[in-house]
């Protein structure tokens, strides 16, 4: 691994990695059963440098912002490297957002360059949102068909300069990227991550989950997500490891990729992990009775032998068939983006496949705590990573309070929002809004949220304010969306739901027509953003002088109503 303490920027470290590991494989890209690409670090450099040169010829330089909206693939990483090489600031956006949401964030970020793939550009170029983001002056599109109408964009494959580009140095304190943790509706939350944030996070994470040139990391979580950016790009690249991209994420191709590419690590969201568990359990249950007995005995033996620490060699010998299905080289499944249920984590650990569960926020530079497996604890999210100071603010008598963190990995602040930054980072401590307790062994346990938001099992952060626009002009006196947990705190991080609180006009009834109207508006939202039910409140909403709803006061009033009877299903 490179000694990252010597480097000032992400670009500088990556530049050295491409030379140091020149002959190692860095990228493999497959589409179903077809392998589309296999690049060494040297070949990666040969792809990226002409792009960097062309960007420089287009006057893209230090501090300029370039956005990538792409599915996981080699061109994502090649483009990101070229941006860093030029001293630029990367703005990775979620390819699953709607075109309007993407344009909104492009405008907010001030990006002058957009790199995207043709199917996404087809949607983006036809969207009305395009007119507002006049800051985007250069669009590069990958894999466009020969006769495609590019609507003013240029082909990524043909955007190549000749001659060597000039590397642009940056300082550790400079912004390396702007990562949106949420806020597509109301208030965009663009986390300004510095080069130091990434360099420090990489050192901390790889000290517990190391990479080396034989490692193969399968990249499934979107690369715009802080986790995949770190463990599916920067981490493996600074250690000479390889990243495997799948262009289709159908479960059968994901399953096939494990043995085919001898995967070492993979990151998954809890939903996918649970699905994997379900599939495996169904196969175990289908075994003949006698085999089932033997299998269960082997699992129990493995559990006993790995109680204090993982023993990969022993687990592989005991449960060979299970491990072979995963390629025989899998060292850990990294799970992130949302909270995982302890029983799922234990299920995999008992099979000899440790799940690296942890806890983190984009604002904190990805991970704050990670299970160090010494021993494995399914009921906690692990211990703080090296360099992380953790504090529980205003703990109750049982020790539960708001988790706050101080570290070199904490973001510089939210882009263009000093007010929100000041609320979030107080005296150098990042207030997470999550409730937790540090147990006697130093492991963090989580107990719900203090903030008005939910995180889905797919790792999506949803803020109620962001989805309210869909209910605008609803024929009622007033309405407001809440995370049910925020009103009725539940000591759980799973099964979170949104509710629509309605104050009807005088004499108005909650009629079938209104319910249908709400339903049809709700269905316009992406499935994971939809509200779960309606709560009726027969009093005026408390408001500020500028007539904004005082959400915390309203939540306190609602808290007096019984949850079970309050939520009317849609």
């Amino acid at each position, binding site marked *: 691994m490179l000694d990252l303490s010597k480097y000032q920027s992400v670009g500088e470290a990556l530049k050295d990695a491409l030379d140091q590991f020149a002959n190692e494989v860095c990228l493999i890209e497959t589409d179903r059963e077809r392998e589309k690409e296999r690049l060494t670090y040297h070949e990666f450099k040969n792809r990226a440098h002409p792009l960097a040169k062309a960007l420089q010829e287009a006057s893209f330089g230090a501090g300029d912002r370039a956005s990538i909206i792409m*599915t996981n693939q080699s061109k994502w990483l090649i483009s990101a490297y070229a941006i860093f090489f030029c001293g630029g600031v990367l703005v990775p956006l979620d*390819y699953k957002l709607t075109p309007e949401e993407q344009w909104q964030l492009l405008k907010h970020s001030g990006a002058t360059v957009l790199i995207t793939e043709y*199917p996404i550009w087809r949607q983006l170029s036809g969207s009305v949102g395009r007119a507002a983001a006049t800051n985007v002056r250069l669009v590069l599109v990958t894999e466009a068909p020969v006769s495609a109408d590019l609507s003013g964009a240029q082909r990524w494959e043909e955007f190549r300069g000749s001659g060597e580009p000039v590397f642009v140095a940056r300082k550790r304190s400079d912004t390396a990227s702007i990562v949106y943790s949420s806020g597509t509706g109301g208030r965009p939350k663009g986390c300004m991550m510095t080069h130091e944030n990434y360099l420090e996070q990489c050192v901390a994470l790889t000290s517990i989950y190391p990479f080396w040139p034989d490692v193969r990391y399968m990249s499934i979580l979107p690369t715009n997500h802080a986790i995949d950016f770190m463990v599916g790009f920067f981490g493996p690249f600074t250690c000479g490891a390889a990243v495997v991209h799948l262009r289709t*994420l*159908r*479960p059968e191709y994901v399953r096939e990729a494990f043995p085919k590419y001898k995967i070492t690590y993979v990151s998954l969201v809890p939903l996918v992990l649970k*699905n994997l568990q379900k599939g495996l359990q169904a196969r175990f249950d289908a075994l003949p009775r006698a085999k089932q007995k033997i299998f269960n005995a082997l699992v129990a033996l493995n559990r006993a032998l790995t109680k204090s620490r993982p023993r990969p060699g022993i687990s592989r010998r005991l449960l060979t068939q299970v491990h072979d299905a995963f390629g025989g080289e899998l060292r850990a499944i990294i799970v992130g983006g949302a909270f995982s249920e302890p029983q799922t984590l234990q299920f995999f650990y008992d099979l000899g496949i440790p799940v690296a569960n942890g806890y983190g926020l984009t604002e904190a530079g990805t991970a704050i705590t990670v299970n160090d497996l010494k021993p494995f604890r399914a009921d906690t999210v692990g211990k703080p990573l090296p360099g992380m100071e953790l504090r529980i603010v205003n703990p109750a008598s049982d020790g539960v309070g708001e988790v706050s963190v101080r570290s070199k990995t904490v973001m510089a602040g939210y882009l263009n929002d000093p007010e929100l930054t000041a609320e979030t980072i107080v005296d150098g401590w990042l207030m997470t809004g999550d409730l937790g307790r540090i147990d006697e062994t130093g492991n963090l346990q989580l107990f719900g949220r203090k903030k008005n938001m939910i995180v889905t099992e797919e790792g999506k952060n949803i803020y109620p304010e962001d989805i309210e626009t869909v209910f605008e002009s609803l024929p009622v006196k007033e309405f407001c969306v809440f995370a049910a947990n925020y009103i009725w705190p539940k000591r759980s991080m799973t099964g979170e739901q949104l509710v629509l609180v309605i104050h009807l006009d005088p004499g108005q009834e909650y009629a079938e027509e209104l319910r249908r109207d709400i339903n049809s508006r709700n*269905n316009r939202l992406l*499935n994971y953003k939809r509200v779960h039910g309606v709560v009726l409140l027969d009093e005026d909403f408390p408001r500020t002088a500028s007539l904004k709803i005082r959400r915390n006061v309203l939540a306190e009033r609602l808290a007096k109503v019984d949850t079970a009877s309050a939520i009317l299903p849609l």
Partner: protein
Amino acid sequence: MRTLEQTTQEVLDLAAKHFQLPAGSLSPGDDFFKKLGIDSLQTLEMLSRLENHFGVELPDYEVQGVSDFKTLAERIQSRL
């Protein structure tokens, strides 16, 4: 060559079979997340079955944001 109506009907029949629902219980306008109570992963599994049936490949981006059978059938039809 199938008509869009035929494709739509076959999509509905296969989805009903895949999720073990009575034949004829699904309609073209149904939101499959809501009607079937499934998640995005289960949708991908259903897509693989549809691909095999129709002998087409549906890139993931083609079905991004699609949540009703009618639109899904249209995407399949465009590749037949």
